[in-house]
């Protein structure tokens, strides 16, 4: 028996013309059931079968066989097929590749956004950390005291590499 599961994950998006297809499927199913019920309750026998046995012609009328509604069911299945994420027929399962790819793309996009956010936050922390360290170095310099005249340093370090 074939069974389908409809896709509904956020971000994957529905298949095109979803509502018109569903409405058509609903009308078809409702219409077929309605007509069948009408025939059943009014005692109508719209489907006749003529059998000829020798010179005897026998006409047998009755309700349509349930199998006759297979055509309606087929049309309804075709209408709803685009919404099916996967279809199981017996032991085999057919997964719609477009949905799977769409899901993967959405997940990748989400992951990419998260990575980007983490990188941005890490970068901000790193920048702020370094900036605060600069302030700390300045504060250390302030606290070290015993400032020396710059001229002492030029004497001490000499003219190495001076132009």
């Amino acid at each position: 028996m074939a069974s389908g599961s409809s896709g509904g994950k956020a971000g994957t998006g529905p298949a095109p013309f979803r509502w018109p297809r569903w409405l058509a499927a609903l009308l078809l199913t409702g219409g077929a059931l309605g007509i069948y019920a009408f025939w059943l309750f009014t005692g109508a026998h719209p489907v006749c079968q003529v059998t000829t046995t020798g010179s005897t012609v026998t006409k047998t009328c009755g309700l349509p066989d349930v199998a006759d509604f297979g055509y309606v069911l087929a049309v309804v299945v075709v209408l709803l097929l685009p919404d099916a994420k996967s279809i199981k027929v017996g032991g085999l399962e057919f997964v719609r590749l477009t949905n799977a790819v769409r899901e993967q793309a959405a997940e990748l996009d989400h992951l990419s956004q998260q990575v980007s956010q983490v990188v941005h936050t890490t970068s901000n922390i790193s920048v702020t950390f370094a900036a605060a360290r600069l302030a700390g170095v300045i504060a250390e310099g302030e606290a070290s005291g015993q400032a020396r005249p710059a001229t002492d340093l030029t004497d001490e370090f000499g003219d190495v590499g001076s132009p």
Partner: protein
Amino acid sequence: MGTASAAASADGASAAVRVAEAVVAEMHALPRPQAAAIARVIAGIGPDMGVPLRIPQPDLAGRQYLALVPGDRELPVVVYRPLTRQEGTGYLVTALASREDYAAYREAEQSGLLDTELGRALLARSRTLAQFDGPGGP
């Protein structure tokens, strides 16, 4: 940009420039030619030089720090401030900052990161952070 030029240091007229002991210690840790180059940059400090730094750190409040960025990219950035009225006239060199820390500071200042909760929290512990020799350490 307050890029220290050879012309700025050539006159060496700023006898009123003083250098904090921590800076002198750092200069001793530098290769001799770099230390000499820094000494010349420091000696050239005078009025209308340097890039103002806005550092919202309580310990440093009320002082205008300036940065001199030497043209030689191997040299650290010189941070200094004018002396207060009580201290006299002239300038005090308070720090040699790594290029990375200085660039990070500019970025943090421009993007307002220093005024965020994280910025304030890190600034409050800046003296401790100064002990860390991170990737941008001098």
